């Protein structure tokens, strides 16, 4: 009798333990990107490429993105950070940013009295494969500078 009772207690205890499956997640701060003082212009999803991106800019870039000025603002700096998408672990139905794929910087600089130039730079992230195509520079410049800012309250 006694041994059945203790067995019962052990089984109960085990059951209770097995119910508490609260293991903690492993944080991956390496997926964060620090854009410094640059502000958000917008996010961009690309399901054909399986990526998700954030476009940041300094005040001059933001001004262009808000007013969609036809002429680029000299002194504008943009940063486009692209991540590989991954399914959100706790919610089937959302894709989120995983590992960083690329970081593109674009600066609009004064070349001489009347002209400006684009200073474009493409950096690869961990998710970038050596066999992947490099984007075409002119296309990227057009893409980045033509973006309208997302609406904020």
């Amino acid at each position: 009798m006694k041994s059945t009772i203790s067995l019962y207690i052990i089984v109960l205890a085990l059951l209770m333990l097995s119910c508490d499956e609260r293991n903690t997640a492993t944080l991956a701060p390496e997926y964060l990107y620090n854009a410094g003082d640059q502000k958000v212009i917008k996010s961009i999803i690309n399901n054909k490429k399986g990526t998700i991106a954030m476009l940041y800019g300094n005040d001059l870039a933001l001004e262009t993105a808000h007013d969609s000025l036809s002429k680029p603002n000299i002194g504008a700096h943009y940063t486009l950070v692209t991540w590989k998408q991954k399914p959100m672990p706790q919610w089937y139905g959302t894709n989120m940013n995983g590992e960083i794929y690329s970081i593109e910087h674009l600066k609009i600089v004064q070349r001489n009295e009347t002209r400006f130039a684009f200073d474009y730079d493409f950096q690869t992230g961990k998710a970038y494969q050596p066999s992947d195509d490099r984007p075409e520079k002119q296309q990227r410049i057009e893409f980045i500078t033509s973006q309208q800012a997302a609406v904020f309250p």
Partner: protein
Amino acid sequence: MKKPGLTFYKSAAVVLILIFVGLQISSPDIENQPVTSEIAVPANVKKILERACYDCHSNEAKVEWFDKIAPASFVVAHDVNEARSRFNFSEWDRNPAGVQELLLWEMVNAIEQGKMPLKRYQLAHPGGKVSESELAVLKKYVNTLPGRHKVDTSRIVAQTSVNHKASSQKTPVSLNGIPYSSDYKNWKIISVTDKLDGGSMRIVYGNDIMVKAIEKRELPFPDGARIVKVVWGKQAEDNDGNVLPGNFQNAQFMIKDSKKYSATEGWGFAKFDGLDLKPAGKTILFEQTCANCHRLLAPENDFVFNIPTK
């Protein structure tokens, strides 16, 4: 020491029997209210829900004889009442259309994470578990819901009408006292998402305390951590596959203060809808609906979904 005599065992047995019988008399009954508006889903989906979920989340509970014996009956009654209060397949129209869809996605997630049906129910009802292939049927179904491929085709509105703006100069405050604040525009981004259910795209900001905690891999997050999620509709995909944000939909806040918000897992929840930033919810109970879903599905992450994890 003197061993307890036979009379001791006898009287102990009598007391136990009396308690047991007393429990049976006070044992709660599961009552089935009439079915007013049953959920309408394809037959193969319905079959799964009926078998695995209806005993708690509907007015058609089939209570087994062993569920009626106290003390088990108390647990069963509690579970059924709680389950019906969350959502009831027999009174499905009480949920607005958008909420119905969200609940269906939440169900898929609750099953996928092994949270539903409840473990203790699965132990007592061996047939209750939802199999992998049944989960696949449910996943396929939620992907056919209207919100899944929603595209924001309306003209993008950048500001509320001038009149309205003048009258709504006051800072909007959520029913639980959390005010809207645009501080987040200077914070760092902790996550960027494409939400397929409901069709929206989101940017999630974290304040300094939140970002530092992630960098130091500190969980649970410390008091003072703040998260703001900004939500937009999705424009139609362009030829290169790009999807850009459409209209602003809402901003959602989570503020960590383990004492002040102890009833909602240490997080204060708030949601502000539209460019007018109208605080969401009719009563303060709204915050419980927020916490219920975060509590069920993201306890490993201190109830936060949008954090970078391996």
